[in-house]
Every structure is written in C-alpha cells, then in structure tokens.
C-alpha cells in the first residue's frame, strides 16, 4: 500500500487515489499526423526506475498532481 503525498491533504493511502498514468504527455497542438496522434493516445513510457506519473486524489481534495515514483522500489518523491 503506497503512501502518497497529496499536495493539499498530505500523506494518504493509495486507496484514496486514482492512478493517472504517465505525467507530462502533452495534448498535441495543431495539425498532427496519424502516428503522432496515435502516440499521444496509446503510447506511454514504461521505464525501470524513476517515472513521473499523475495521481488524482479522488476520495480527498480531488486534485490532480504529479509525483516521481521508482518503479522498482516504489520510492516516491514529489516533483
């Protein structure tokens, strides 16, 4: 059970959150090719190591935020 630091509510159990996947995937601006659009919709990084990801405090303050989590150790650092 991860303990996730919500920027508003402080540390809370993982069960209070929804996972939001990779952070920093920008909505493509302007005209984009099918490949670029498909990359935005379907492709995400899956690194072994530090990963910047989004969480949504659904059972708390309903804030979306990003943290860095180490996908091997689950260590979390706010970013």
């Amino acid at each position, binding site marked *: 059970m991860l303990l996730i630091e919500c920027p508003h509510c402080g540390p809370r159990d993982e069960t209070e959150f929804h996972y939001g996947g990779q952070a920093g995937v920008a909505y493509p601006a302007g005209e984009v090719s099918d490949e670029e659009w498909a990359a935005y919709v379907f492709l995400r990084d899956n690194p072994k190591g530090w990963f910047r990801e989004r969480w949504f405090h659904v059972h*708390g303050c309903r804030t979306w935020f990003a943290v860095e989590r180490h996908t091997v150790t689950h260590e979390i650092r706010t970013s």
Partner: protein
Amino acid sequence: MRFTFDGRELRGEPGDTLAAALLRNGVRVVGRSVELGRPRGIFAAGADEPNALVRVGADPMLAATTVELYDGLEAWSLRGKGRLDLDAVDERRYDKGYLHCDVLVVGGGPAGLAAAVAAGRAGARVILVDEQPRLGGDLLNSRVLLDGAPALDWVDGLDLPSRVLTRTTAVGYYDHNYVVAVERRERGERLWHLRARRVVLATGAHERSLAFPGNDRPGVMLASAARAYANRYGVPPGRRAVVLACADSGYEAARDLEAAGVDVAAIVDPRQEGLVPGTLAGQVVTGTTADAEGVLTGVYVGGGHSVGHSGGYGGGRGDQYIEADLLAVAGGWNPVVHLFSQSQGRVRFDDDLQAFVPDVSAQAERSAGACRGRYGTREAIADGYAAGTEAAALALGRTPDHEATAPETAPATADGWRVPECDERAPRAPAVLWQVEGRSGEPAFADLHRDVTVEDLARAAGTGMRSVEHVKRYTTAGTGADQGKTSGAVVVGVMSALLGAAPGQVGTTTFRPPYTPVSFATLAGRDRGALSDPVRTTAMHDVHVARGAVFENVGQWKRPRYFPVDGEPMEAAVPRECRAARTAVAAMDASTLGKIDLRGADAGEFLDRIYTNTFSTLAVGACRYGVMCRADGMVFDDGTTTRLAEDHFLMTTTTGNAAAVLDWLEEWRQTEWPELDVSFTSVTDHWATVAVVGPRARQVIAVVAPDALGLAFMRYTEADVLGVPGRVFRISFSGELAYEVNVPWAYGRALWEAVLDLGAVPYGTETMHVLRAEKGFAIVGQETDGTVTPQDLGMAWIVSPRKPDFVGKRSHARPDTARPGRKRLVGLLPDDPAALVEEGAQLVAGLREGVVPMLGHVTSSYAGAALGRTFALALAKGVAPGDRLRAVSGAVVHGVTVVDPVFYDKDNARRDGDPLEGSPAPYAGEVRAESPAAACAARFAAASGPAVRLREVAFEPMWEVRGADPGAGLRLGPSWWLVSGNITPQPGWVDVSGQRTILELAGPAAEDVLITGCPIDLHPSAFPGHAQTLLGKTSVILERRDPETCRLYVRSSFARYLAEWLLDALDAL
C-alpha cells in the same frame, strides 16, 4: 481446563498452548504426514511448527503450538491438509483497525522491548506488536537471569508504550512501511493495518533441525521447543533425552531439561569440543528407532565421516545406540528474516552464523537482536535499544547520535538507561552440518510438512535443477502451511552439499506474505454480507421495498427493475408498465442519474471541448443531449445538459458513469485547461428525480408542478413542486411526453408517493430499457463497449464538424476509425416474433454452413410491448436493412432480419402527449421531509451508550463554495469549501443540503469505532480537525468537533450503508 483431542477428553492448565496441553497428557502422535502418512509429533513451540496441525472448531487448520488452550476447546488431528467443517458455526466478529506511529516495533523479546522503551523515551509514538499472550519473547521460555533476577521481572519493570498489541502477529510488510498484523481476540481476529515512519524488526530466530535418518519421529523435537515446554509450561517433553547440540543452545536445553527432571542420557556435539564433561564430541546422530506407533525409542550416535562437499556426515558401523524417548535437536539458528525480506530487504549468508541475515534494507527499517544474528540476551537488548533510539530520531527528523546509540560498549546508555547484566555465556559458532547419511533405510527429511526428503532433493539436483526456486516447485519443499520455517535453511544446506556450492550461492527462496496463515474471514473483517460492498439507495428506496419492487444492481445502486402487482412475473409486469407509459401515465425513480453542477464564465466553452456537439450556443433554459468521447474517439458517456443561467449548467450522466464523468471533467479542467473558469459540483444525491412519462403526464404535472405545465420539449424551469422549490425538465427517454421532476432529497419520497397517488404507474429499469430500445436509443455500456464511436451508433449528427476541437475529434479521423465497414448499430427482428434472441448472440451471414465470419453481436433484446413482438439492437458490419442473418448463441440459432434501429414512432409524433383534461384537484396528501438516515433513528438510539453515541444531524443546510475563501466552513481542497449551518448563502454557492447528511459519533469510544475503517492518522498531532477520506468503503468528510465528537458527512445515497456499518461497528466494540 477441559478440552478434547480427536474426541478424547483431556485436561490442561491455564496458559498452556494446545501443544503443551497435549504433551502434558502424554499425547505423542498428533497427526500423520501429508504425503507418506507417517506418524508425527510436536516438533516446535511456536509459529514454525510443521507437524502438529489441527482443526479447532470452525478453523480448518491451525498449528497446535499457536493455539491458546481454553475450557471446552475441541481439536481434531489432520493429515497435513486443512478440512473445512461446513457445519461449524462461527460466531466470532472479525474486524480491522488502522493505526499510525513514528516507530513500530515487531517482536516483544529482549531486543524489541528495549527498542520500544528507547523509542518511547525519545518521544516517539510507538506501537509494539508481539505474537505471544505476554511479552518477553524467548525470555518466556528460558531460565536466564537479568541482573541476578528472573528475566521476566526485568520485563515487568519496563516503561512500555501505551499501544502494545499482544497476541498479534505481523504477517505482511508492504511498501512504504505498511505492516499488516493479525490480533487474536477471543471474540474474533482483528487485522491491523499499521503505518510507521520507522520499523524496528525484532522478530527473533527460529531453531532449525538437520536432515538425518528418521528425523521425523514423534519425540524428535527442536531443543528450544523442548526447553520451552519444560521451563514455560512445566511439561517435560520426555523422560530420557538425547540432545544434539550443533549449536550451544543445545547445552542450555540439556541443562533446563535436567532441571525439569528429564534424564539427559547424552549430549552429542558434532564439533570437536564439548562444552560440558561427557559430551559425545565430534559425533552425530545417525539414526533413530521407534515403537509400533512410530514414537521414538532410541538414537544411534556415531563418529561418522565427512561426505559430500560441505556439511555432510555418514554413519559408521561402530555407532552406539542410546535409548531415549526425546531427541532434542539444536541444529543452529535461523534469524526470522521473513518480514525483512518481504520489505524487499536483501539477505546474505553469514558463514560464522551459518545463516541468512539481513544485509541491505529497502525501507525505513532496521533489524535488531536475534533476527540479525545477535543471539545473546544482553547483546540483543543493547542492539534493540540502539535500534529504537535511532528509529525515534529518524522518525522525528533528528540526526541519530551513533555514539549514544551504541550502549553495548557502556554500562549505561547516554540517557541513563542501563542494559542489564546477564548470566549467559557467549555462544560459539555452530557446527557446519546440514545432513547425515544414515545406517538405516529411514528417510532423512528436509521438510517435515511437505514430506520432502534428502532423496527428493537429490532427485531434483539430478534432473539438473540448480535454483532453489525450481527445487521448491519441483519438490514442494517450503510450500506447506508453515511456509518452510523449519525447512528452508535445511533445504538450502542440503542443496549446497549436493551442488558443491556455498549456501550463500544457493540463496533462499522468496519470503512472501503472510508470515503465518491468515483466514479469509480475518481479511474480510466486517466487510461481509450486507457490508461487503456499499449499497446506494435513493430517497424513495423504502417505498419501493414496501411496494414489493424487484431490484437490480446498477453499479452500487439498487434500482427497481420492475414493480410486480399481485405476484406477477417480470414477463407480465413489464408489458403492463410499458402500456402505462405509452397510453396513460407512468413514473420512474430517476434519482440515480449523475448530476453535475457546472459554473463559471467558461462553462460553455468547457462543454464544447468535452462533448462532441456544441453547448456554448445553448439558450438559457434549454436542454441538449450530448455525447462525450475518450481521447481515442470512443463513446464514453451521454446525457442531457441544461443551461440554467449564462454561466451555469447542469449535466446529467449515466447512472453507472457518474463518478467517472466527474473525474474526467476534473482531469481535463485541471491538467489541460487550467485557464478555463469553470468548476464542478456533484449534486447527484442532492436532487431526487421522478420521471413522469406518458401521454397523460400533464394530468400529474398539473398537480405536482403546475408552473411546468407549459414547458416545451427540451426546456427546463424552476418550479414549485408540491410547495418545495424544485426543477422540472422536459426530457424524454421513451419517445413519450415526459417530465423529469427534481426536488431536494428530503422530499423525494413525498414527491414519488404523490405522483403515484395521482395515478402514475410505477415502472423500473426493465421497462425503461424496452421503451428506449423501441425508440432505438443506445445505452452507453450496453450498445457500447469502449470500441464504438458516435458514428458507429449512427449518431454522426451529434459530432460537430465545425468545432475546432473536442476530446476525441482527431481520433475520428484515424484510419481505423474512419474506415468504411465498421460495425454499426442496427435493428433486428427475429423470424419468430415470440423468440427472444440472447444478448451477446453472435451474428453470422445467411444460410452458409461451416466456418463463417462473425458480423457482429446482439447488444439488446426485448419483447416490445408496443411492437407486440420481440426485437433487438445489434452492432454489425457490412449489413443493410433487409439482410437475413442468423443469431447464434451456443446451440440456439435464430433467423433474424436487419432493420432500421428505430422501431417505434419514427417521426417522433408522440413526444407532446395529450392536452390537459379538466383542472385536476390539488394534491391532498402530506408532503413531509425525510432525512436519509431517518429510518435508522431508533436503532441509533438503541445502540448508543456511555461509550459512544450515534445520531443523525438531519436537514443541516450546506453549500459547496468555489473560488474565494468564504471565511467559514470546512476547506475541502484548493479553492473548495463546504459551508453549513443557518447562514445566508452568497451568490454562486451551490446548495448541497440534500447531497449529504451528517452522522455524529460522540463519546470516549468514538475513535475506537473510527479506526476500524478510517485509514488516516486520527492522532491529534497529525489530524488537522477535518479531512475528506474513506470510512469503511465510502467517502466521507470527517470533522472532529471536540476530542470525543466526530461528525461524518456522508453522501445521502451512502447514508444507509454507513449507518449499517456504524451500527455493526458499535455492536462489535
């Protein structure tokens, strides 16, 4: 204390474990082994027991060494596998609990006790858990003196933390210092969820045996266990003993056994020097003999010779035979690294200790005492104290002073605490010995529980297996109920000998939770039966129940499926309900539809980006149907949205998707379009909604909401509804004249009863489905499955070609989405107008036999009341009206014809219904407000007492406020407040008085109730006074009004669930 074992009446003493009591009664054979059926006796004295597994009452398999005896206990022997007695009655109340601390100490032996004292003295919040009924760990089993007095005197004199959980076994160590522990209580186990800033593991060590021939006979026992039975329980486990002392603890056992009156015939020490005169040094046990029952009668001892690469001896011809009914084996010690390993810490093999010890920590944790190989009592106390001091410093954000935390070098610690003197002598290194090859043909067991022998391991090695993980799976060694606590090291030792590798190279198998077996009942706690998942109910629920409604689950909601009259079946009820809606007037409880209040100058722009069609141009007072897609272009949800004011909309969502849609709106607003001025408030529970449907709906509306009588199709008005401020929308999901009448939750029941009194026929979800399907209206989640675009549904008209962008727009131009030949929504008419095609049936072309391509599948299928025949909706590719298909489901095949998906009233001629006839009389019934938990009031009062009182604080006015700080209320999030009380609302505040109700817990035990279901830290030093969090399985706002009074703001639809949960918690206190 009386108890029975396999039906035999026996007597034990208070404080006995079942194992001790069995030994007290001379019971030597307690069961038979799982594979070979060999007689087995008690082998250990704790959770490591591999043999003495018993059924006790409703518990199918417990280790007799961990069961506390009680008067009337009934136990049965097992053959290695648990047996569930389905007739056993289990009246115990299982529960959960959530606790937080600075320092969690696992283990109440010398090291753990010292750690807890040290951390407490340093000012930390400390929790100490220990599996035994009383603290002391190995001190309970030994006769060691501390400062010249019995060691338990020292334990009793300690200044321990307030939260000490005895009879509590830490079974799992998860991410971020989350430790799960099981507390054994007479009234039922409690699963503790413990979150600690720092953890000190002081889990001790398990003694191990070694693999010699005949090492499984009843009478062969771990030396530490023999010592525990003799010292702690006063039960000498035999009359004449041989002690095999591969480690010096064997000598301690021999001394204590002698003191208990056991004749110690010999001490055998494989090492070259014995500790006491007469020791058979340099010798090993090479075999055993047994009587007819299989119980130990004697031991062969010989000089042996070294075999294999390391740690093996073979018996010789000159072995001597010693009569004995007890063989106490001190094979060496295994630090209990289970929790450490579960925490992802790395172990290493220590050559001096001949054991795996903690090496590199992965979490905020430190091992202390015997679980890291510090076996001496004094050494463990000093190590524990240092670990506790360091853990407290780190938890409290101080820099640990390593000089001060190394008390083993000084007579007293820097803060004046003194490590007691101890009469033990330092142990020597154990013998490097894992197996003995025997003179007899008796098997030598590596894993007693799984009946795995050295021969089995040799076979595994012979097949080429090198990894212990493979060997484990091939032989099943270590997979028993004891998870290899006594066998793990022996298997590694034997494998290292077989492979000619060092044990450290062979390595261990993975230690996985739970450390000891945990029952599903314990994991479930009180979340079982009616509380296994929240049941959401509407304001009208009790009336539906009273009317005999048949319910269906829609998400967590209970919705009436149909309302049978005089016990009629659904096949009769639904056509009757449909007829009422198509020819007269009918009503449905539509309260479960999601309702989201959107406010802000950019609300229209926001909706344009979320929906596929346009809302910014919607006139105030108008409603519009909308579809929203995911970024992949697939339909996500639909519903109508109404413009209440220039900067104010109300969105409705499907029942099942309400929460997901609100999350979706928040995601786009917060992460992509933070510049937009728009905020969202869920008002799903605030409003109770009744859909009044049918050509004669005006006859009802004229009475309940006359203001709305003139409402045009897809228009909205605020209206006086039976004297209550309400909202009426002219929206239809059936094609008939329909009004959705909304009143605050408290008046939902009154409105429903009035509408029915006025002649509306109540209908449920099944009729709603038939009515909408006859009109060809798709349902998200039924016609769609995440692979369906609006265009696939034949709804290209709702996808704006003019808007620059909306979520999913670009995906509609992707090659796969834009290609011709995708599955489209079609209608189907079965050849047999009475045949109901199964939903999910596959559609295949025409009359071809054999392997044929699948063209699609049936998504909805009903007997249409208005159509007078069955019909279906389907998704199918490459078909056109008039095509003949077959619908195949298993062996059932129906011929069907493809038709347009609108079956009824294609030109929408029915939507305006009949004009009002006459002037209906005003409603004469009572219009009474009812709070969500009103029906529970008497039970709340009955359950309340001096310890805790429970009541509903009903009808509290509440508003959610966004933007600027209102200077009052509870702050729920960034720019988000809940204001309550009798104050005048400001413009822009969203009335949510019906959205939640308040349940109040007061009294000294209020917090004891909350910790059974609230995962956050409620300690005054950590809890800010209020929080939005979880309680049981529902979201709440928890407000602590004073140290003993908590208010729980709960969604009205969850109020019944939470009420039942709280009543159950009070009952379980």
